[in-house]
């Protein structure tokens, strides 16, 4: 794949992918590694339609995240919690951190659709295409995910 095109995709999607993968790794450094791995694999791809690139990158990065999660290295490591490490008594920041922790508490299958639809603003159809699931399945994952997130958040702040 051409460097210019790759660079363009990186500018456009790297941030989205890193954030998406964070929902699986729970730490930013592993998420960055997975994003890097996905782009390295994209370099080896040749003819790929532009509309297929984002779903492909997300799936590749998430597979890389799952590989890392299975590795012996990962099981011996306790990540530094970037959201609780820095002291703050600001109620807004504390609530934000609680929401982030709540997101990591809910089941994996809900996290990506919630992130893509609610934080990235993709429509349900676009989200369905990216996560490679049916329209109605995606819609119900988002609906249930929102409820679960609210419950997990309430548990986290009390």
């Amino acid at each position: 794949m051409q460097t210019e095109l790759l660079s363009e995709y990186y500018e456009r999607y790297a941030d989205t992918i890193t954030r998406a993968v964070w929902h699986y790794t729970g730490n930013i450094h592993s998420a960055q590694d997975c994003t890097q791995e996905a782009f390295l694999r994209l370099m080896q791809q040749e003819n790929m339609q532009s509309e297929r690139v984002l779903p492909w990158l997300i799936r590749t990065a998430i597979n890389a995240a799952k590989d890392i999660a299975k590795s012996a290295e990962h099981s011996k490591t306790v990540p530094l919690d970037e959201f609780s490490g820095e002291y703050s008594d600001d109620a807004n920041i504390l609530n934000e951190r609680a929401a982030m922790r709540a997101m990591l508490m809910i089941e994996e299958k809900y996290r990506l659709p919630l992130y893509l639809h609610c934080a990235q603003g993709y429509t349900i159809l676009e989200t369905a295409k990216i996560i490679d699931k049916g329209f109605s399945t995606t819609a119900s994952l988002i609906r249930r995910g929102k409820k679960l997130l609210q419950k997990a958040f309430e548990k986290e702040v009390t």
Partner: protein
Amino acid sequence: MVKVNAMELYKSGINRINAPQNPFKAQNMKKDETPQITVKHNTAVIKTNRFYYAAAVAGIILITIAAIGFIRSKDIEISQHANSKASHESSDNSLIGSFTSATTSQSPITTTQSAISSTSSLISTSSRPVKQHNYANIDEAVKAYRSCEDEIQLTLKEFKAVRSKESFNAQDLQKYQNKLNELTKAQSDITDNILKDKLYTSDIVILDARPVENTDKPTAKIVIMNVSEQLITMLGNGTLTDLQTGEQVGRFELVSQSVVPNAGARSTIYFDASNIPSDITQKITSERKKYSITFNGSKLQESSNGYVNVPIKISTVSWFESKVWAMSYLDEDGLYKRNDLEKIDVIGQ
């Protein structure tokens, strides 16, 4: 009690996760230079650990095989109750043989090498199988390409119609997506056939040209195939001329250009056709009236100082004509270059 929206809080938190800087940004990159990417330390650690892990697994497997060999030879020894010395020798040999192979086969290295070779074969197999068509001439090949493009446009229309409905099945959309993939592949097969059978008679073959619908501005899409080994890029404006009167009736502005790799450098060029009067557009689409389009290009040529970009004007002799469009090169003064003139092959005139 204040009602808190967990999603809003989550969104404000997730916005603080940022991607690293773009490692692919080609700064001062020369032609054909491999892009550099920063490999992070922890990736290297994981890969090193994987290597040791693979070595350990290979070692355990070999020891297990040796042990099984040893036990089986022992079984044979017990069951036969004879020639015990020979049997012992045999089992020892089997054991020694297994351990020798374990120590001399350098299994982790072999594993790594096979992994590398399989990776390279994965990369090299990207040259996909091409369907052989045996077109008699370029006319036939381009006609096939255009009919594929017609079908793509039709499929896209159907796809959009289904998508705009209030309720639809995602599987239906997938069906259209698959059809589009097949048609795109068929187009690549056609261009590969043009290249392989050397059907082209000029450096540039115009595969298709048509207006793009539902865009902010009137836009024309032109697909060309550059069969020369030189890089040709389109620059600036294009002009549209009435072939009967010789009058310039409109102007295009280059919007974007994209290249399909490994397809005979097939480029799709989008022109802003806002400056083409609507009555002309109407004549082009409905009457298929002939117009000439000329656009500026740049050709990479070898000079004494290396490669330089030479500005050229590229002209077609007909616009939205069903047959193949002939191309001609003009120099900056609008004069035909003698060498290029020899390459001109006016087809379908």
